[in-house]
């Protein structure tokens, strides 16, 4: 299922959440990478018909999202960044209800609900009230509801944000497993989330597309621009002001840095093989502080 976005804009007063985004998602598992506030959620909410754009056009499998939102909802599975369920229901009851809302015929419903529960490994807990679930379980239930009705398009907004590292890895694997023939659009600000799984990705920065292509192409963006060097703690300020620092650690009282820069920094950097994160930093221009925060 192909997604075509043309010159999409969404303004909140003076805030330009999306500022002329054009993007072609051919299918498969596609990552939408960008720092907080880049406009990922806004883009996805427009895609899943929850939000009307200021201008621009989006089609999903040829269906115009603005003109025929009802048809888009029929082929859609959506996991928002933030969501909840009726806490007094069990997972089974909740999914059964959602199955009806998704127009699954009564006979197929029971089977499908059981299948998606199995898929997200919640079969054992299906008869428990959702109010007693952990964050990871709720997240998995979120996937389960999205899978109901076997949607051709899955839109997943920052699914790993609230998870601990172990849950996060399990979650990534789950996403990969369920992607199958579907188009999966996954937004995240964590490079590792898309690294292993995505066949294509785009980097969103301040409401604009900073990069669109394959992960390999993104890595290439950083080739010849990634350096390793050691500096005195006193030199830090000067270096950070001029180049993008990917990571840093202390070795014997000195700082060992990995930086992205067009020229060899201070003339004493050693060129190293680039990774996806370096590519992301190279196109998004994110500073160290965010870089460190996002590094797992």
């Amino acid at each position: 299922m192909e997604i075509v976005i043309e010159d999409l804009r969404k303004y909140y007063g003076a805030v330009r959440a999306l500022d002329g985004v054009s993007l072609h998602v051919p299918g498969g598992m596609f990552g939408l990478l960008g720092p907080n506030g880049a406009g990922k959620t806004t883009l996805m909410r427009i895609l899943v018909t929850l939000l009307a754009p200021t201008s621009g056009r989006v089609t999903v499998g040829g269906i115009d999202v603005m003109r025929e939102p009802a048809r888009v909802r029929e082929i859609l599975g959506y996991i928002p960044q933030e969501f909840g369920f009726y806490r007094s229901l069990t997972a089974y009851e909740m999914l059964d209800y959602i199955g009806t809302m998704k127009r699954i015929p009564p006979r197929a419903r029971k089977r499908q609900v059981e299948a998606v529960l199995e898929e997200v490994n919640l079969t054992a807990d299906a008869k428990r009230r959702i109010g007693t679930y952990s964050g990871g379980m709720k997240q998995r239930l979120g996937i389960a509801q999205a899978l109901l009705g076997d949607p051709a398009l899955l839109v997943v907004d920052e699914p790993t944000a609230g998870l601990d590292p172990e849950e996060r890895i399990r979650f990534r694997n789950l996403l990969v497993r369920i992607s199958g023939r579907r188009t999966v659009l996954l937004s995240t600000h964590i490079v590792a989330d898309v690294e292993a799984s995505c066949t294509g990705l785009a980097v969103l920065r301040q409401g604009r597309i900073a990069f669109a292509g394959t992960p390999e192409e993104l890595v290439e963006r950083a080739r010849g621009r990634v350096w390793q060097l050691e500096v005195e703690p006193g030199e830090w300020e000067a270096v950070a002001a001029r180049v993008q620092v990917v990571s840093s650690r202390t070795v014997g009282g000195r700082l060992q840095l990995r930086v992205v820069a067009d020229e060899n920094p201070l003339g004493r950097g050693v060129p190293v093989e680039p990774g996806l994160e370096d590519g992301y930093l190279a196109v998004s221009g994110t500073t160290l502080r965010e870089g460190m925060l996002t590094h797992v």
Partner: protein
Amino acid sequence: MSSLLARALIAWRLELRLLVRHWAYPLLLAAWSAFVIYVFRDQAVISPEAALNRDLGHFSIGISSLAALLLGAAGAGRSQRTRFASLEESYPTGAEVLLGRWLAGVVALLPTQVAAVAIAGRAGPASSLWRGLPTFVLEATITVAFCTAVGWLLVSWLGPRRWVYPLLAGGWLGCLGLPVFLGRRNLGIPGAELLDFMRSDTGSYEELWGRLFEGALPVWFNLFYAGLAALGVALVVARVAARRRRRAPLVPAALALAALVVAAASATAYVQQVRAWEARAVDRGKPRPLPGPGDLATAAVETIDAWEIAVDLTDPASPRFDARFTLRNAGSEPITAATLTLHRDLAITMSSLPYARDGDVLTLTLSEPLAPGATRDLRLAYAGPIWAFIAGFDQTPYPVTFTAADGVRLAHSGGWYPVPGRMLAPPDWSEPTHPPAAFHLAVTVPEGWGVFSNLPATGDTTFASERATWVVLFASPRLRTEQVGASTIVAPEALLPRARALVPDYEALLADLARYFPGPAPKGLTFAVLDTLPGTAAYTPPAGDQPLVIMSGTTPRDLKKYPLNRRYVMGDALAADLWGLAGGAPELPFLFHVVQESLWARHVAGGDPERFRREVTDALGGGQADPAVVALAKIEARRGEDGVRQVIARMIAEQQTLRGLAPAELAAWIEEAGGAR
């Protein structure tokens, strides 16, 4: 389509479940029921139907409207509160889910009415409960649906904010004052009480006439709120649809418009009826010159010796009358024209003499002069609806005489039969209407209707008396007549058991009091439990040889707890009739008062002199007893009941000479007559 219905149904079911299984729900039900039970724990209830259609039912609906507002708001905000909304909105659903959930709110609230139904059910026969239940449930549903819709609308506009609840509760509390501010008494805006969505205006249900006095008002009221409820829901749907379909929500907008039209049209019709009703009341309520007590017998030279009237109520809204009557010249000069009174609304279809009308005054031109003392048989046929109003409590027009499809009430002053002279009495006139005369009444009613007249019955729908001074005719599909031993009871079906239960008390009291009056003791009585009393003669003097007692349906059930009511509807009613049957004139109330006062005190005291003393002093207040009453008591102490009977017999025989005696003089006369001096 079927899957649309299925989604609506599943949404309805889930919402209902979420509401009902919430911890607050049983609390809410318990609190609401407890409140209703507390308020009505020992309030008198006329009948189950009356209870549901009046205070109890309306109170119960009124307070559940608050629950409906809050529950509506809670239901509307749930998805956003639980953050399920962003999921829910991505599903391929439409307005059906909203509708299902809103309806679930309505259904979840209906159990708040169970307590009211239970209390009502204990007040009388099940048939009355079944008759009242559908209207009650419908009205409760409409109010609850309207309030739930308001709650939904508010939350869908303002979002699921916590302060919405206090806002709603505060608004509701504010509305408690609505009937006071909007009632006709206050602002004087016709139809303003239409805004009383809590139905705290109790309406005017009467056991005999149902909600007849309200006319089509309840229908318009209900349609108005059904329209507003639909409007509220349509607006919510339109809002959601506009956002979700990215199109002008044409269908919901059209529905909203239709609902608005229904509400507006109903409101207009409501106000129009109120206006029409008031105009009628103003027209009929104009003050008229009142005849003084006793004037009636001497007012006119024309007298009617006998009436024979056939009333055809086949179309109760427009009865047909065929009156034959014997006119006598009671004056000393020959007359060439007879002045009679007949209600102006009645259209004369046939007359044996040429006539002229001026308002209620009917002048018949005699073809040849009628000599003093001579009689002439006349015939008059007339037809049409007649209505006469008095200003009721809170100034709402209250019909005393009316002819409607659901019932006919012809009060004795209603001018529904030709009365001699200019008998321009107000509708609630309480004196007799004419000198005693023969009166034969034959009534034709629709299948299943019952008929009541103050004249003795000679058949199911025929009545006759040789000395009628006033005549009423009530007909209603609810009216029933039953023979209990020597007595006859007449009451709306639901009140028959109560009437039946009181007959032994009445008969015992009758036997007790009758000993003091000359002549044979009457066997049994005619006991009618009807609606409120305006439009009958005071103390309902009998036209046969049995006492006639008419009790209002609103009289407290347990008379033992209400000694004043008991005295009025039992002691005074029977004593007045015994006085009248013995020949006592009703226009000499002070004489009768002495007898009545003394006999009742005696009855209540049951031989205890201290109690007797207290009764007679309490009656006047200020520690003073009427000396005439004391004098009569002295006679009994000295000469027993025979002595009292003799005094009363003399009192009646000489009543005209006793006119105008002061209490002390009357006391002296009694002591003299009883041989105590």
